């Protein structure tokens, strides 16, 4: 992963131009004038103008003032790292009238050993019918020859013409499935979009990017050659996530879908119970892989964020267990779930002891879930495999936190050896960092596409 963005924005950007009820031609004229003035000022009397560099055009579509501010701030952070053309659009629902309200602000970076770079952020408030035609509106502002990313900050209107029109002018649609208002339905729309998206269009989910640290930690365990056979011996996968309701299971479903797609698991059956419990059976060759999700209460996690992932199995007569926990320094057992703590006393105040006891408790709990059908029936009272939430779960609260630093504790047990602990720090994963990472790695991610389809397959069943 690219290094985290650590830029500190010192000052407010300078407002260079503002117009209410203006036409796009006026915005373009103002933008060109600002650029020319900067080039002249930097070149001095006797020099040629320095070349402008630009690595991408970022078009952020916001629906609220809070989103607009977030977009502007993110654009400034990106501009401090890479010169980019940023356009922030806010749809003013219900407003009438002609023209646009537009603002152009600039940030100037002065690297110690390179010429100054000016980044402009163009903010457009659009209303009326123009709001349904974003593509043609911003087309004249796009920088030729560099990728255009359309960052839809809320839930993209999947299946609607306005989205498809906007997608024509961009190379990638960027969204954050952890911010979807109706996650299940949005995921369904997204999985359809994947199948019809044109070849050039990349799809990038910031939530998928955030899961990268989890995927890396899991992949790391199987990277040494001598552990590669363990991949074919996985029999259990357990995932803890924050919040309840099926919309919060997207992250867990992504991890499951990713492993299923990578390792050729085929979904046999799945069911959900109250308290966010999900149990699923996959077929992997002659083996069965049991997958369990459960909702945990962790105050510091936003709904949908993962708290722990556990993998276990046997290969070549050797058992193995891998547990990756997030932020283990936080109280691992909230007051509402004390039962397993008392069943597995830690034997001391040591944090490692608490973690180990907690982990044993988690495994113990999963043993209780071995019989999926009886679990399902016990939990829901429904016949096996038929339980579905009757209404989509709608989230109204902020689903992402601003503090995104994570600590991962990996515990490895192989055979009879003592558990091996490994602590890793996952750097901040704010939106600017994730967007810059997409810029470096591209948005055409076939692994994401496959994982999404397999995740939706699971979500649909439960």
């Amino acid at each position, binding site marked *: 992963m690219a290094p985290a963005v650590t830029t500190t924005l010192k000052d407010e950007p300078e407002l260079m131009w503002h117009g209410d009820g203006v036409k796009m031609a006026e915005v373009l004229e103002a933008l060109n004038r600002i650029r020319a003035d900067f080039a002249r000022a930097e070149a001095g009397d006797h020099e040629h103008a320095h070349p402008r560099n630009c690595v991408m055009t970022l078009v952020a579509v916001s629906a609220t003032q809070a989103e607009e501010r977030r977009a502007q701030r993110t654009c400034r952070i990106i501009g401090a*790292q890479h010169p980019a053309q940023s356009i922030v659009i806010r749809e003013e629902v219900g407003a009438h009238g002609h023209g646009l309200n537009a603002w152009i602000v600039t940030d100037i970076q002065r690297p110690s050993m390179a010429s100054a770079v000016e980044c402009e952020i163009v903010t457009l408030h659009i209303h009326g019918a123009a709001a349904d035609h974003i593509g043609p509106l911003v087309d004249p502002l796009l920088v030729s020859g560099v990728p255009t990313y359309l960052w839809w900050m809320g839930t993209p209107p999947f299946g609607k013409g306005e989205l498809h029109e906007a997608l024509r002018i961009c190379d990638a649609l960027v969204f954050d499935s952890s911010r979807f208002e109706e996650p299940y339905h949005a995921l369904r729309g997204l999985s359809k979009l994947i199948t019809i998206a044109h070849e050039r269009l990349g799809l990038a989910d910031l939530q998928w990017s955030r899961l990268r640290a989890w995927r*890396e*930690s899991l992949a790391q365990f199987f990277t040494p050659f*001598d552990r590669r056979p363990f991949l074919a011996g996985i029999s259990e996968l357990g995932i803890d996530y924050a919040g309840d309701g099926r919309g919060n299971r997207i992250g867990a479903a992504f991890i499951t879908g*990713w492993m299923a797609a990578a390792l050729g698991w085929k979904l046999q059956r799945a069911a959900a119970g109250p308290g966010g419990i999900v149990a699923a059976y996959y077929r992997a060759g002659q083996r069965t892989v049991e997958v369990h999700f459960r909702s945990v209460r962790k105050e510091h996690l936003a709904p949908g964020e993962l708290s722990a992932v556990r993998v276990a199995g046997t290969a070549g007569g050797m058992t193995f267990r891998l547990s990756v926990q997030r932020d283990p320094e936080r109280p691992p057992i909230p007051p509402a779930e004390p039962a397993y703590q008392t069943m597995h006393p830690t034997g001391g105040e040591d944090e490692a002891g608490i973690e180990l006891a907690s982990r044993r408790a988690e495994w113990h709990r999963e043993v209780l879930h071995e019989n999926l059908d009886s679990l399902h029936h016990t939990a829901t009272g429904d016949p096996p495999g038929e339980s579905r939430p009757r209404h989509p779960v709608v989230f109204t609260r902020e689903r992402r936190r601003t503090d995104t630093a994570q600590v991962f504790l990996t515990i490895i047990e192989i055979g009879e050896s*003592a558990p091996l602990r490994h602590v890793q720090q996952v750097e901040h994963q704010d939106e600017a960092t994730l967007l810059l990472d997409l810029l470096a790695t591209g948005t055409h991610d076939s692994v994401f596409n496959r994982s999404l389809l397999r995740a939706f397959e699971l979500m649909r069943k439960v």
Partner: protein
Amino acid sequence: MKVEEAPNPLAEGLHDYRVADTAVMVIFGATGDLSGRKLLPALYNLAKQRSLPAGFAVVGAAMSDVTDDAFRKLASEKIHQFSRTKPIDDRVLEAFLSSLSYVKVDFSKLDDFRALAQRLQELDSSRHIPGNRIFYCATPPPTYQTIALQLQAAALNTGGGFHRIVVEKPFGSDLNSARELTQTLQKVFPENSVYRIDHYLGKETVQNILAFRFANSIFEPVWNANLIDSVQITVAEEIGIEQRGAYYDQAGALRDIVQNHALQLVALTAMEPPLAFDATAVRDEKVKVLRAVRPLLGDDIAKSTVRGQYTKGWVLGEQVIGYCDEKNVAPDSQTETFAALRLSIDNWRWAGVPFYVRAGKRLPKSVTEIRVQFKRPPHLTFGREAMQEVDPNAITLRIQPEEGISLKFGAKVPSAGLRIRSVNMDFQYLTSFLVEAPEAYERLLLDCMIGDPTLFTRADEVEAAWHLIDPIEESWRNGVPPLGMYPGGAWGPEAATMLLQADGREWHRP
């Protein structure tokens, strides 16, 4: 393909996913300068980037009698002092320090190596390490062979897992000593387990030469003798020899810089496109081109080489002493602090294109660059008068300090008449990538752990370079050509200017 040899399917799509296999890295000379300044901070940063796997361990091994805790304390101090990334992340540091331990090793005592072996076995057991070992010689070059032989005697080069040894440049002081070192190392480790580290190759900027040449299609078609007039490579330093008088007076600019850094730049500039960016393909091409460099022999050395030594002068506005007044330098030293060569590459691509190489200390500024000078247009369409202010086209690859690429070409001066003037199209990496590049040692240490020797020097590469340098070195020790003096702050002795003037060219001023 066996299961364990197949790619990890869970790693697919994880860009930049580079994770080392679980291993123990033994740092010989762990309490020394290189370890403290470079290796331990680089390992800490790798841990911070989550590139070190669970179970990875570091064992410090040196003559000093210190405890594990004392070594961890020392490591912590050095990491705080020299880490590229600040502030130090306490959580990562604590986890990293917990993977450190220390064993006192006197390189002459086999028993100490046996004690080391015992410690490594314990770590294998407690940290799920499948016997993988990396032995890093952060020690003076004369100890490399002793360490390798003791590792063999203690059976530390055998068993399950991989066993690699890392040695730092210089790799010998001439062809014979380089061969002797290679032979000893190869007695103990197969060549593909010997990692000769020249941190220069780990620099992002040096790797960018390959990206520039082989990730773009517009440059390669003109990258040959048909269009290129000459190539100039400059590795200039404004600093003197600082505290390295004793070493430098034995080595000189030719061995210190030209034999490795400058010839690496020649190879990267002149090599054919490798089939892939992998160890064998890249290093094969580098060796091929180094072998194609025509050796300078006999009279050629007097005609095609220049050696110089700085005297007192002014650099960056400050008065500096002469080389012979430096600490630990013989007052009558004949060691060169400046070297310039005219090299020819005898292959189809470069026939007739001279490569001018210069490297020196106490030059006006620190700069490393490769300048590719193109031929003049075959016909002056606009007439001689209109073109009199126009230099030939040139591409300059600036390695440091302002990494970038500039292209010089002619453009019409705005006026009623028709006059052409040279202009520069200048690309600065910093204006497109305003992020800090990783330290060279981070890249190279991780490459070694992963088992990717692409950016390490292979034995035949080292020998090819010494094969070119040895005759020059011998001639210079015999006083041919004579040592030219230059005041600190000048671009070398007068003979360096004459070297190009004789060919109707002149050095580009960086």
